[in-house]
């Protein structure tokens, strides 16, 4: 997904309010460059289908789906108390179901059809024009639609970690549906769909910004808006079944190769190298977290090493196609440290109740990864240079990308949540929270 398009970042300051104000106005005339860039990419792509690439992307797509169902659902589900585990699974499953439909109907079009630099158009609603022979690069466009869909559904599912155990199921669905259209689709357009954000200079191989920082910030905002879980501090909130969390983390690790190596959109050396850097950073981050926790708490925990692995996966996501082994190992180590601090020091410092550490891991890890991509990018791997090869400016560009995304997603997520709160309420009643969401909201329990 290295579709880094030339565009003036100058328009940025005006862009966010403009977008909010004009809703889905397609400020088409404002950004002809983006549209041209999309065409250029289309032209550059070889016009024939490659069956090896297609085979790999078919698999990569289902791997990313597996990351959410059952991967992430189990990762999160094992961490809550027993009375809420089914609610987590339900939320993830419903997000995938409902948002998949929305993606097909309008999301893909808003993200990837020609539009303004800020958002795509409506010309591909209901996938108009995506037929049997349409190609994106060397793979069928229908496959590209599906591959992108899996990213579009896992991002909202990640947010669940922020508001777990206390949000109404109905409000959650409403929030997610609008969030997909108002936050995810535009940011996806900025970065991969011909939008204004990612000029040639900003690097994000597989979605550190679009997916992880985006979800991490939205999770943090929802944790703050909803408030702390009742019982925090007094009740035993320890994860009820880390076996589930371990299965989830493992499937995330395995599936992430589809996410990262799949983002090469081909079965070639780039994909293979992305797999190698992804795996190295992950292993290093897991090991680092384990050692730090061992040193600080006296015992290395399973939850710790699993969290470390996910931290590494997050951080290497933007970098995996640009850095070499050494860069990957350093990114892994730094992200293990940083996210350990994110879930302990940082969270305690501000006192928000990011229930499953959506921001502590995905937000912090995403930021670390995006910045370090600017440090460790080497020409031999991804054709781009970073700080260590003398291109100090890259770090600043990366920081800019991070900042814009954080601001936009924070503001829009906050407004959305507040509107829904007024309209139908965000939080379940205290009785429901005590009784458990499984039984109260879904009429089921784990026996």
């Amino acid at each position, binding site marked *: 997904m290295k579709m880094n398009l030339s565009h003036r970042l100058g328009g940025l300051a005006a862009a966010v309010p403009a977008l909010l104000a004009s809703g889905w106005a397609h400020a088409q005339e404002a950004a002809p460059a983006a549209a041209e860039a999309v065409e250029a990419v289309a032209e550059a792509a070889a016009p024939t289908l490659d069956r090896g690439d297609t085979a790999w992307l078919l698999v990569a797509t289902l791997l990313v789906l597996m990351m959410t169902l059952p991967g992430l659902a189990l990762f999160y589900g094992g961490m809550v108390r027993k009375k809420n585990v089914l609610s987590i699974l339900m939320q993830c499953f419903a997000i995938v179901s409902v948002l998949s439909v929305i993606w097909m109907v309008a999301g893909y079009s808003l993200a990837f059809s020609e539009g303004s630099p800020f958002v795509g158009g409506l010309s591909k609603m209901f996938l108009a024009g995506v037929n049997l022979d349409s190609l994106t690069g060397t793979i069928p466009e229908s496959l590209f639609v599906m591959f992108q869909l899996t990213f579009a559904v896992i991002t909202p599912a990640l947010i669940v970690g922020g508001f777990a155990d206390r949000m109404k199921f109905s409000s959650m669905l409403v929030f997610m549906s609008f969030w997909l259209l108002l936050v995810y689709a535009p940011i996806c357009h900025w970065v991969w769909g011909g939008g204004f954000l990612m000029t040639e200079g900003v690097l994000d191989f597989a979605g550190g910004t679009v997916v992880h920082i985006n979800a991490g910030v939205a999770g943090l905002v929802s944790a703050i808006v909803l408030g702390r879980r009742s019982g925090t501090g007094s009740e035993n*909130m320890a994860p009820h079944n880390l076996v589930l969390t371990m299965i989830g983390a493992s499937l995330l690790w395995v599936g992430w190769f589809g996410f990262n190596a799949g983002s090469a959109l081909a079965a070639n050396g780039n994909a293979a190298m992305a797999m190698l850097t992804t795996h190295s950073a992950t292993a290093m981050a897991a090991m680092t977290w384990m050692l730090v926790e061992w040193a*600080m*708490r006296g015992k290395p925990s399973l939850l710790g090493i699993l969290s470390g692995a996910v931290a590494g996966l997050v951080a290497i996501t933007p970098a995996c196609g640009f850095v070499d082994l050494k860069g990957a190992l350093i990114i892994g180590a730094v992200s293990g440290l940083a996210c350990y601090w994110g879930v302990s020091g940082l969270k305690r410092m501000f006192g928000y109740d990011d229930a499953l550490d959506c921001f502590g891991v995905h937000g912090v890890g995403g930021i670390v990864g995006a910045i370090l991509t600017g440090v460790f990018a080497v020409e031999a791997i991804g054709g781009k240079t970073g700080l260590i090869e003398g291109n100090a400016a890259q770090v600043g560009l990366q920081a800019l990308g991070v900042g814009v995304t954080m601001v936009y997603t924070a503001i829009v997520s906050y407004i959305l949540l507040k509107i829904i709160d007024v309209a139908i309420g965000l939080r379940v009643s205290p009785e429901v929270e005590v009784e458990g969401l499984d039984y109260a909201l879904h009429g089921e329990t784990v026996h």
Partner: protein
Amino acid sequence: MKLVMAIIKPFKLDEVREALTPLGIQGLTVSEVKGFGRQKGQTEIYRGAEYMVNFLPKVKIEVAVNDDIVDRVIEAIQASANTGKIGDGKIFVLDLVSAVRIRTGEKDTDAL
């Protein structure tokens, strides 16, 4: 007859059972319970944070015995369940009005 109810540390269960056999105890009933007591401060580690666990896993043994061996039963349990560390648990003795063996309908002493 008495009903002796002992709350012990889980890993002592087998030892206690073995200590009761020589007294002619042929049956007992066991449940998993959680104990709250002086023994405190255990923590679980949870993402770099620590977690105070108020309730500790214990095992409850209930055994119906004849009055003549109650004292020996108590001694046997106390000796075998003892580790000398806090949290070893308690033995409670209740009066038993009657007992019945469901299979045969035998009553009281014969039912044990």
